[in-house]
């Protein structure tokens, strides 16, 4: 679709992940030197009364939201993002990220789309919500007109 076709109500195509994996939690913990065991020690998660599954890092959950925006408008498109965490994501969870355009403005040569963005778990629980401002490229991948049914077993991005 062309940039001019993006209107208030246009949906950011959903980004899906069939399974959040323990190995990637361990990888981020190593990169960040994050000693918090809730990301790599199930016994510790249970001891803290947080269930029996590892808890995904918040930055990763926001990263999924970013993926939806970047896959839609390009890796250099993000101008601002405000998020807050509303629930945990656990290993094995399916997640889907998406958004809806709420406002469009011109900023010099840029056309900026303000979008409500979110990440949901497979059970429908909202894990992250926020607002992104995205610079729209002249050409974008096709946008969906309505939210796909959920859950899905396939990622929608490369």
């Amino acid at each position, binding site marked *: 679709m062309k940039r001019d076709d993006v209107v208030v109500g246009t949906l950011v195509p959903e980004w899906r*992940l069939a399974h959040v994996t323990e190995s*990637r939690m361990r*990888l*981020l913990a190593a*990169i*960040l030197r994050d000693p*918090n065991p809730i990301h790599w020690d199930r016994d510790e998660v249970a001891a*803290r009364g947080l269930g029996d599954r590892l808890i995904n890092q*918040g*930055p*990763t959950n*926001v*990263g*999924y939201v*970013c*993926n939806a925006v*970047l*896959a839609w408008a390009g*890796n*250099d498109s*993000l*101008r*601002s*993002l*405000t*998020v*807050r*965490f509303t629930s945990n994501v656990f290993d094995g969870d399916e997640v889907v990220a998406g958004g809806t355009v709420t406002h469009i403005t011109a900023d010099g040569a840029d056309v900026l789309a303000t979008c409500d963005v979110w990440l949901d778990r497979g059970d429908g629980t909202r894990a992250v919500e926020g607002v992104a401002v995205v610079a729209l490229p002249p050409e974008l991948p096709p946008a969906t007109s309505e939210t796909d049914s959920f859950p899905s077993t396939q*990622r929608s*991005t*490369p």
Partner: protein
Amino acid sequence: MEALVGKRFPGGSYTVERWENVLLHDVVEHPVDPTGIVHPIGLFHVPLAACGWSYREIFEICGAESDEAVRAGEYTWELTAPMRAGVTYDIAGEFVDVERKHGRRGGVFDKVTFRLDLSEQTTGALVARVTNSWLFLRSDP
């Protein structure tokens, strides 16, 4: 706690190496950008890794009662350009707000907001501004 407002971080610098950027993309399962753009997830840890204080020191400065008594609040990123692998960024910032609040579930807590700027070291150009709010639960306010 109000005295925190205006307190400046020591600051520092950080370079996201190519290997680190590749692994960050692995973590979030997004294809690596061929031009070296760092995934925005880097805006979580890069400013804090080079702000001059450790998490532990920030917790102590903010009077955290324990690690478990700290919650993530709101995170805002403003970007004038994407971060790039191999580029060194200077980080500088300060505490900008402290607000005593009364939560329905968490009881009394202090919402502490701080801002960190990332500037390209060679040019001084501001690339990103990160504003984080952390919530410090108070059992005996």
